[in-house]
Every structure is written in C-alpha cells, then in structure tokens.
C-alpha cells in the first residue's frame, strides 16, 4: 500500500475534541453575542412609542372602517368558500398535541430529516441521515435525557440534558414547530402578503386542502412559504419553502415539509421500537444497550 495513502487517511482521521469547559465557555459567550446581535428577537416584539401614541388616534377611524369591512366580509362569506387566515393556521397548530414533520428536498426520495414532537409527552425525536446511516436523537424533557441511536451500530447512548437545554427544548415544543415563520400578519415584516393560490390542480395534489402563499422580504432576500391548509382543521399538511436573492429573480424551491399529526400512542410506539421499552429509557446517563427490535421503516411521505 502507498504510504502516502496511509498518511492521508491518518490526517483525515486526526480529530481534536473540545472539552466540556471549553464548550460551556464558548457557548455562553456566543449566546451573549447572539442576544446582542438580535436584540429585538431575543427581547420579544414590543410596540414602539410611535405605535403606542398614534394607535388611539387612528383607532376611531379604524373601528369605523372595520365595521364596513366586517359587513362586506359577512356578505362575501355567504357567497364564497371559507378563506383561512394565517392567524387561524397558527392557532390550529398551537392546539396540535403531536406532530411529525418530514423535510424533503427536490432530488431526494427520502426525507432529509424527520422530527416527531409530542407536547403532551414533552419529547422530541429527530431522525437524520437515511438508510443504514440513519441516526435517531430523542430528547426526553421530563427525564432530562438525550438518547441517541445509530441504526448502523445498533446501540443506544444516553446523556443527561443540561437544565438550560431542557428549558430551551420545552420552550421550543410550545412553538409552532417551524412550519410557520410568523404567528400572524401583524407580526410579519412590513410588506408581507398572505394570499390564496387560485389553482385547483395544486389543491388536488394534497386532497382536502386550500393553498396559500406567504411572501416576505428580510435583509435583502425574498422568501415564500406555500402552505397547504387542511380545509377542515386549518392545520398545515404541507409547506414548501422558496427563496430568491434578488427581487427580479424567480423563486427557487428549497425544501418541502410534510406534516402529519399522530396520536400520543403512535409516538410512544415509535419511540419504543427505536429505543426500547420505557424502563430502559429511564436509565442513568452513560447507559449503553441494544434495543430489542429493529425499527420499522419510519419514512412518511404523501
């Protein structure tokens, strides 16, 4: 064998790992830097002084206009199919107890990532990579555990979740699962638009849905989220993410997320298949074991 080949392999395999103290120091400083660089996002969205002062003055006229708009809306509502507002989709998502989001790119047959979230069980499970390389990460918030399983090695490793990480995770599962970038048009950037896509063929591609486009611009880029909303539940069944760098460009497809709403029982069963029975999941950090069964194919696709 060529010694240079060995040398190249040795360099490729050469790996230095950070210590826990280093990780803590860097992340603490990086979090502080992030808060400094994105103060409005970190502090929440508050009304500006101008909004507070101007609001009462315009309120009277707005109220009158609102009465007129409501009257018109009631008239049209009787004549046209129910239109769904972004806020309704957001509210429906907030009420969902369990969710599975599978993310696809155009060229790939399998999802590049799947995330199962259960608000009632307070667990989040990620599947990344595909086939034999698949990796499952389970974040069990009540037990403060993170469990990882690589399908190829067929072993499960467990580590303790830091308190801060558990809090962040708990907060994230009460979020809207990343399917919607904004809670309502009021919280979207100025100039954002929510409009129904008048294309019956497109609606037929995901039966029982109405299709809406949410477009917005931020930091010079333009974004479009196409959302297929279930006509009965107002829940998104599919979202497509588009992006363009310049206003004159065509939107480019980036990814697609397919949403399913499993029951708590289904999520428990899936976790059991991958990580073993409940009693194994409550083991101490450092536990390494082999689950009893190989998981079934967990791929979900419409």
């Amino acid at each position, binding site marked *: 064998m060529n010694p240079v080949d060995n040398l190249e392999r040795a*360099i490729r395999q050469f790996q230095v790992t950070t210590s826990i103290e280093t990780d803590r120091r860097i992340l603490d400083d990086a979090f502080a830097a992030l808060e400094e660089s994105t103060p409005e996002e970190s502090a929440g969205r508050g009304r500006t002084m101008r909004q507070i002062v101007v609001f009462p003055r315009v309120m009277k006229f707005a109220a009158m206009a609102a009465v007129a708009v409501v009257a018109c809306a009631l008239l049209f509502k009787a004549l046209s199919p129910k239109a769904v507002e972004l806020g309704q989709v957001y509210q429906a998502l907030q009420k969902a107890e369990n969710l599975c989001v599978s993310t696809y790119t155009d060229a790939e047959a399998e999802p590049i990532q799947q995330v199962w979230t259960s608000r009632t069980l307070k667990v989040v499970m990620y599947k990344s990579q595909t086939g034999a390389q698949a990796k499952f990460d389970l974040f069990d918030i009540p037990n403060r555990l993170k469990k990882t399983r690589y399908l190829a090695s067929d072993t499960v490793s467990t580590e303790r979740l830091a308190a801060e990480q558990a809090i962040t995770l708990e907060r994230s599962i009460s979020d809207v699962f990343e399917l919607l970038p904004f809670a309502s048009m009021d919280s979207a950037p100025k100039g954002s638009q929510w409009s129904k896509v008048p294309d019956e063929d497109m609606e037929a591609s995901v039966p029982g849905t109405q299709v809406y486009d949410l477009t917005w611009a*931020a930091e010079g880029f333009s974004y479009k989220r196409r959302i297929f909303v279930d006509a009965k539940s107002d829940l998104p069944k599919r979202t497509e993410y588009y992006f363009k760098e310049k206003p004159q460009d065509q939107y480019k497809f980036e990814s697609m997320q397919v949403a399913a709403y499993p029951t708590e029982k289904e999520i428990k069963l899936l976790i059991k298949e991958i990580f073993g029975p409940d009693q194994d999941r409550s083991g101490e950090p450092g536990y390494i074991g082999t689950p009893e069964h190989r998981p079934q194919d967990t791929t979900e696709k419409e």
Partner: protein
Amino acid sequence: MLEDQRLLWRLKRGDKEALRSVYEKYKDNMLTVATSLLHDAGSAEDVLHDVFVSFAMSVRKIELHSSLRKYLITSIINRVRDRFRTKKHHIVELDEVGPVSSDSESPERSAILGEEAQLLAGALARLPLEQRETIVLHLKADMKFKQIAKMQGISISTVQGRYRYGLSKLRTILNGEMKK
C-alpha cells in the same frame, strides 16, 4: 447546505438552540483545523472561541453562498493567519517540536489528543505554513484544490505542488520519528 440555510435563518431570529446545533455540528472540525495549523491546543481553542463568538455576533449580516462549514473553516484559517501575522509565528524548527502545547494543565485537555495524534500534529507543525495549510484544507476541510487555489489566490498547480511536497516531507518526518 439546505439544513445550514435553515439553521442560519433560525439564527437570524435569535434562536439559541440553532446556535448550539451549529456549534455541536462543526466545533470538532474547526478545532482540529486550528490545532493542525497552530500546534497549540490553547491557541486553537482561543481561535475557535473567537471565530464562533464573532459568528454569533455578526450572524445577521452573513450571506451564505456556500456551505456553513466552509464559511466557518475559512474563518478559522483567516483567524489563524491573523495570529501568525500579529504574533510573528515562525515555522517551527525540527528540534523545537514537542507534544501539542497547552496553556492549561486540564486533564480533559491532555486526554483530547492521543499519542498518534500528537505525533501527527507535531509532524504537521514542522511543515512550512503554506504546505501545512494546503494539506489541512484539502484533508480536514474537504476543499478541492481548485477551491484552495481560489482562496489563496494562487494557481492550482502551485496548490498541488505544495500538497505533494508537504505530504512527502511529512512522511520523511514521521519515518524519522518512528526510527527514534
């Protein structure tokens, strides 16, 4: 690439968990590149710290045209170059090289590099910086010769030459170390 775009998008909204994900995903690769170039664990960790905090600080301005990994590795390379410029680091002479040095006596840190890795890191440190950088960029950052040439502003043949000479010299150094 796509996952990175999403992480960056979340980061721009101040999502700390996205920042943690980026760190967990790339920290070892970044630290390995820094250690390979600097041959000093303490300085390499400082470079990782500076680059990552600076990344978090300027995340709103970042426009990702390639992968996030390439962006972060390039930032590491630039920071290492700055260190060499400001501290006037020189090529380490053959007799000067010992184990990867550290300004900390932390047992965790001493456990980070095994004996073989120490040997390899020591041998890498004896190479001229440009050869070391080329080897590290190609093998540790998975950059193609064409990308390295563009980054360093030199021709591809020069990059290939540096790579070949660097590997050859590295093999000689390691053979010498083995015979000791």
